[in-house]
């Protein structure tokens, strides 16, 4: 039942009142969220990664919402200037499988919506600030042999400028 509810919640349309974008080495990250959340409304963050370069790239989905859930502390949240504790899962990673890479053609974007409430206490009223603090663990050009082991990864920082939102009482 929990799953069904989550799917319903996950597919509600959002009013995209804030969107920020930043380019970093051929990949650009965008985050959006409603600027104001009423009490009880899910805090859904839409997160997307776009290939702004001229060649296809493959990106390991770990450390991003594109893995299909919150499997790392890739965001940092504050309420009224105070850092919020993370209560999601932290994973010890080994070497990835091929299916855990996402291939992005030039201009192509992948996006995912995550419910922040699954891993941070975002129900209390206040002014929230949110930053993406993850790092892409492996970015490969077309033709690279994938998957590749941890020691052969080419990591890359990803700059997603911060967002803020207001939770109403």
């Amino acid at each position, binding site marked *: 039942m929990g799953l069904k509810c989550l799917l*319903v919640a996950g*597919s509600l349309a959002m009013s995209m009142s804030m969107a920020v974008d930043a380019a970093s080495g051929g990949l650009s990250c965008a985050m959006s969220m409603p600027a104001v959340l009423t009490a009880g409304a899910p805090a859904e963050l839409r997160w997307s990664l776009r290939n702004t370069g001229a060649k296809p790239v493959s990106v390991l989905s770990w450390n991003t919402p594109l893995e299909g*859930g919150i*499997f790392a502390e890739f965001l940092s949240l504050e309420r009224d200037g105070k850092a919020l504790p993370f209560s*999601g899962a932290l994973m*010890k*990673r080994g070497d990835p499988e091929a299916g855990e890479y996402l291939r992005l053609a030039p201009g192509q974007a992948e996006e995912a919506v995550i419910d922040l409430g699954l891993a941070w206490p975002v129900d209390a009223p206040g002014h929230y600030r949110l930053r993406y603090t993850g790092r892409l663990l492996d970015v490969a050009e077309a033709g690279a042999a994938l998957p590749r082991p941890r020691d052969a990864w080419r990591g890359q920082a990803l700059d997603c400028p911060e967002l803020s939102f207001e939770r109403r009482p």
Partner: protein
Amino acid sequence: MPHARWLSLSATALALGLSAQAHAAAPIAVSLSLDSAAAKGSEDVYVTVTLKNVSSQPAKLLRWLAPVGELEEGIFHITRDGKDVPYQGAHYKRVAPTAKDYITIKPGQSLTRRVELSNAYDLTVSGQYAISYDVAAVNLFGDLDKNQAALKAGQYQAMQALDSQAANLWVNGLSYSESLIQKANETNAVTPAAFGISFTGRCSSTRQALLRDAVTAAQNMSNNALSYLNAGTAGPRYTTWFGTYTSARYATAKSHFTNIYSAMSTQSLTLDCSCKKSGTYAYVYPTQPYKIYLCGAFWNAPMTGTDSKGGTLVHEMSHFNVVAGTDDHAYGQSSAKSLAISSPDQALDNADNHEYFAENTPAQN
């Protein structure tokens, strides 16, 4: 299995009444068959599932509710003598599906998969079992664009459902009271003090034995690490994993290993075997001590040494906020070494650096 017996052949689709939109019959028919109509409670039970596209167009099905591999959700409805048998397998936190989260079956084609049930449902107790596939979700059949259009038009989205007829299985296994005694034995503490190990997520007896050895290995490693720090040594072993010496950082390392060793040898640990992710060793929720979920890569790891079973438990133990509250800033030995050079403070907040210091492989002084 050569004598597969077809126990049911049809499927039905329901459109639950959440919407004014009319829903056609499901594009997919699901049928189940069991290798045998009877099983001993001690053996693994598999069901063979056939998904047939009965429509004239390509049919899509949401992958994580499709019976195509390891179970990721409780997609089967199972009863024993009329009472529900709960799903005990993995649960994942999900985001809304996108186009890549669907499997596609061409018109007229079928997809057949064999799925293990006994690792996610308790099929050890004697009785008459009825097993059916039964799922429902918005976007089950992947009409993502249509659903977005409905949302924009202010309409609710319909739940979409898919199920099969029941396949019947007779299990000649444990009596219900015997199964309770067996479960109690499985979850009893190894030693009667506060320290103990219990198991959830259907750890096989082989895995329980491996986990007991892994806890012993983790106790030995963390005790060895603590002795090193208590002696005040700051040799290459320390600087490789925690960087340039300062007395403040050294004190942090010492308090982390005091807590790791203490928790590993005095707390009651819960070890869970339900995670199947093969590129992942293990995970924890840092606010929920002392439950550790072991994943696919863990079972292939050596008992001691680099990225071992014992070291993985040290890594996970360091994450709990009440222990050392570490994070995962960098993964793997080479990244952990670089982190120690570039940012010793982050190395002291990184779980893998603690693990590699404890594993000390290859050994350094």
